[in-house]
């Protein structure tokens, strides 16, 4: 069933989107009709009638879902499942041509050579200026100045068309014509011909868009894709050949050799001169290192005469035009249906970047939920919410501490000379309290969700059971209020997570630490709310109960407690919310199970679907807790605020 849904998800999503658009439109019409029947104030409408209504809820939900489908590119995938594959081939062309484009003023304001000359001249200038302040010995200073002059001329000479090698010019010509030929091919619908059977089979065998996580099929599978993939391969080769070209003319080589030997000689003479001061030694060696670095940069030969690359640039521009024109409707689809990001090509794979990546597709999110809800898969070997068969003996043993057996009189049995161990009463008790006997098994819930819920429930339980009596006591006794107030008020304002590192260190990263942390959170809230409730008991009610014959215990149980119930229940509601938030953060901090743990691991793996699944689970569970508390409050204290 779920396999079928998964295979058909694109069709389902396509219909769903149409349904959502229709429901959006219909609910807006219905809502507007209802609003038209109400007489509203001219300026601000009528706040008393701002009641929503199911049709506006439908509008809001449809809107949110459509936005989600749109920005996660689920809509794009539903209506054009091949788009990602084709855009992947387009991205291959873009990434192949990228290193070449970077040298030209196409995406950047300047030619690469212009930037290099500006940078290197500025650096030479800086070295020259520093020479003035260093106050070196005269001979050394003269030598460095001479080297600087030569470096400058070597730099400048690269830009001079008179010195360029004629073979390099021819190579530029060749590159430009290769690009031109490719542009012509690009515009030819017959290029590059049909894929062969092997290619076709490989393309058909690869998984579809998002079939396995974030996968985008990388091999071309459509005619357009084939064309782009072929162009990408060729233009990649051209680019590789182009970036290898260097402006290494004989003149430059001679200049570099000259400068190199001068620097070396200067370094040698510095080393040989033992009379130099420490400061001068340091200054000189630093200076020579800088000069060497500059020489290496110039030796690179990456600067060409200003107009020598014009041919290649114009070829590239017309290639670009062909590249964009050939995308046709795919370009429009990319712009409008895949907003907030794009598909990028890496070395061996394509990936969604932008909102398509961090906002998972609703269908994939559901698929992920279905996948990790499967107890055989789960997350990190623990199912999301499942059960296991647990012997009753073990559960019973959990309730009894093991030392009970030690209290039983007598000795534990020893083995006899035949190697047999005969059990006695004491060992039987020990077996019982450790669960070491055969017993039938019952299903016990287990899994990440269940662990989180149990932690909250246990922490909350102890917080209530201990906090409410103390709160009532504090509300009724001047002494208790004064005595306990400082302790609670000192720890309560500290954010629970600030306690977490300490508590988790003391009590361990498993359940104990987290439950104690939640207990602390719930305890403070319950004490304060129970105290407020008890303080709010009217004296006349206590007097009335007293004169009706109730004793102290009965007044506490029958008057003060029910009177504080509204505050206590509100406190529980708040405590659940705070505990839930604290727990998730604590689970992220440390531990091996729990929803927070799942989310944290998913974060480390950049598994956005799982992150969103945990967010949705946390939201739904939090909402469920709150709804339960709301209905409990409605049932138990309908008199609230009406006394």
């Amino acid at each position: 069933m779920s396999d079928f849904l998964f295979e058909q998800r694109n069709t389902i999503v396509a219909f769903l989107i149409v349904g959502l658009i229709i429901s959006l439109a219909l609910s807006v019409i219905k809502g507007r009709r209802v609003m038209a029947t109400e007489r509203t104030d001219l300026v601000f409408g009528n706040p008393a009638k701002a009641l929503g209504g199911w049709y506006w809820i439908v509008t809001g939900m449809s809107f949110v879902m459509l936005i989600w489908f749109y920005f996660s590119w689920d809509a794009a995938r539903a209506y054009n499942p091949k788009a990602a594959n084709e855009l992947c081939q387009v991205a291959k062309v873009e990434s192949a041509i990228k290193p070449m484009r970077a040298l030209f003023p196409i995406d950047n304001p300047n030619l690469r050579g212009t930037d290099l000359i500006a940078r290197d001249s500025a650096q030479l200038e800086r070295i020259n200026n520093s020479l003035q302040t260093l106050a070196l010995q005269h001979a050394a200073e003269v030598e460095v100045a001479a080297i600087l002059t030569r470096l400058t001329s070597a730099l400048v000479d690269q830009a001079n068309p008179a010195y360029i090698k004629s073979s390099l010019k021819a190579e530029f010509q060749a590159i430009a014509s290769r690009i031109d030929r490719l542009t012509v091919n690009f515009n030819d619908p017959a290029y590059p011909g049909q894929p062969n059977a092997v290619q076709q089979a490989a393309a058909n065998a690869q998984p579809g868009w998002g079939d396995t996580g974030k996968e985008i099929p990388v091999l071309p599978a459509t005619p357009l894709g084939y064309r782009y993939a072929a162009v990408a391969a060729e233009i990649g080769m051209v680019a590789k050949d182009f970036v290898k070209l260097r402006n290494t003319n004989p003149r430059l080589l001679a200049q570099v050799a000259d400068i190199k030997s001068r620097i070396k000689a200067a370094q040698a003479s510095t080393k040989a001169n033992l009379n130099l001061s420490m400061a001068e030694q340091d200054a000189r060696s630093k200076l020579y290192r800088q000069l060497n670095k500059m020489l290496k940069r110039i030796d690179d030969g990456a600067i060409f005469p200003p107009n020598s690359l014009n041919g290649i640039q114009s070829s590239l521009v017309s290639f670009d035009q062909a590249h964009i024109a050939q995308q046709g409707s795919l370009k429009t689809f990319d712009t409008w249906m895949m907003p907030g990001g794009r598909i990028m090509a890496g070395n061996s794979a394509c990936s969604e970047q932008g909102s398509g990546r961090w906002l998972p597709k609703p269908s994939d999110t559901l698929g992920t939920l279905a996948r990790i809800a499967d107890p055989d898969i789960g997350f990190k070997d623990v199912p999301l919410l499942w059960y296991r068969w647990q012997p009753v003996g073990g559960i019973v043993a959990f309730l009894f501490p093991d030392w009970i057996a030690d209290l039983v009189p007598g000795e534990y049995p020893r083995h006899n000379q035949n190697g047999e161990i005969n059990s006695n009463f004491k060992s039987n008790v020990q077996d019982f309290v450790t669960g070491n006997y055969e017993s039938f098994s019952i299903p016990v819930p287990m899994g990440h969700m269940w662990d989180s819920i149990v932690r909250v429930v246990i922490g909350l339980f102890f917080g209530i059971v201990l906090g409410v009596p103390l709160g009532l006591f504090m509300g009724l006794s001047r002494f208790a209020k004064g005595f306990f107030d400082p302790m609670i008020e000192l720890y309560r304002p500290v954010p629970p997570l600030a306690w977490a590192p300490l508590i988790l260190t003391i009590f361990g990263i498993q359940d104990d630490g987290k439950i104690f942390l939640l207990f602390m959170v719930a305890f403070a809230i319950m004490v304060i709310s129970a105290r407020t409730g008890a303080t709010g008991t009217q004296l006349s009610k206590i007097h009335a109960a007293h004169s009706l014959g109730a004793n102290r215990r009965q007044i506490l149980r029958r008057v003060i407690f029910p009177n504080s119930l509204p505050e206590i229940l509100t406190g529980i509601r708040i405590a659940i919310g705070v505990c839930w938030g604290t727990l998730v953060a604590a689970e992220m901090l440390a531990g091996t199970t729990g929803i927070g743990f799942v989310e944290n691991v998913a974060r480390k793996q950049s598994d956005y679907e799982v992150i969103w699944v945990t967010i949705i689970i946390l939201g739904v569970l939090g909402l469920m807790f709150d709804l339960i508390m709301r209905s409990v409050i409605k049932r138990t204290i309908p008199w609230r605020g009406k006394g």
Partner: protein
Amino acid sequence: MSDLVSDNLNMKFTTPSGLVVHALKDVSFNLKEGELLSVLGPSGCGKTTLLNIIAGFLNPTGGSVKLGDNEILAPGVDRGMVFQQGALFEWLTVAENVDFGLRMKGADPVETAKKVDEWLEIVGLAGFGDTPTYQLSGGMQQRIALARCLINDPDLILMDEPLGALDALTREKMQSLILKIWKETGKTIMIITHSVEEALMLGERLFVMAPRPGRLHKEYRLPFAEMGLTQDPRDIKKTQHFSETREEILSMIWDMEEEIMGGGSL
């Protein structure tokens, strides 16, 4: 014989700033069984303190109060209380409020239920047993408070401005109800009020108290309560005797208030 005997009752409070307030000074009176007493006085004359001492919520600093042979030292079921706001337990239903005292005693539930029905009938709330109290009006709540107190069969009923929070019409109906109950049960009733007309209507005896220190100022014996059992209260209020007494007491209290205000401004 369970008369209420107050013997030289004195009550002094010390405020946190060390000031001694003489709330009651030498209050002595004798309230016979079955008498209806209303206590009237300007604010601060100690009438609520007196009531609290009789109820047992406060212990006097001097003198004693006895109900029958027992000195009053603590609250007890022999004295029922009715408070201004009813002081009902709003988390309980009408019936649960009424049988609260019996339940605390652990009385037989079947008999209790019977008694509750009887008393709801008497106060005119038959059939309201399962209604939550917070849904009822102020007058109905006060009726429940009466029933809740009377079901315990106390010797003495203490009412602390029981009708103060009710509207005029409900108030008159409740006055008749109190008179009816007084007559039918023959209970001793002590009512504290700040309405002169109410004090006249609900007082076989009437104490006017004076402040600073709180003391009994004047006592009246009045026929209006007895008359109220048979006649229309409005007719009674029209009689000359009623209006003369009312004016006399009003001017008395007016003078006391003036004195307090004058003393305050000096």
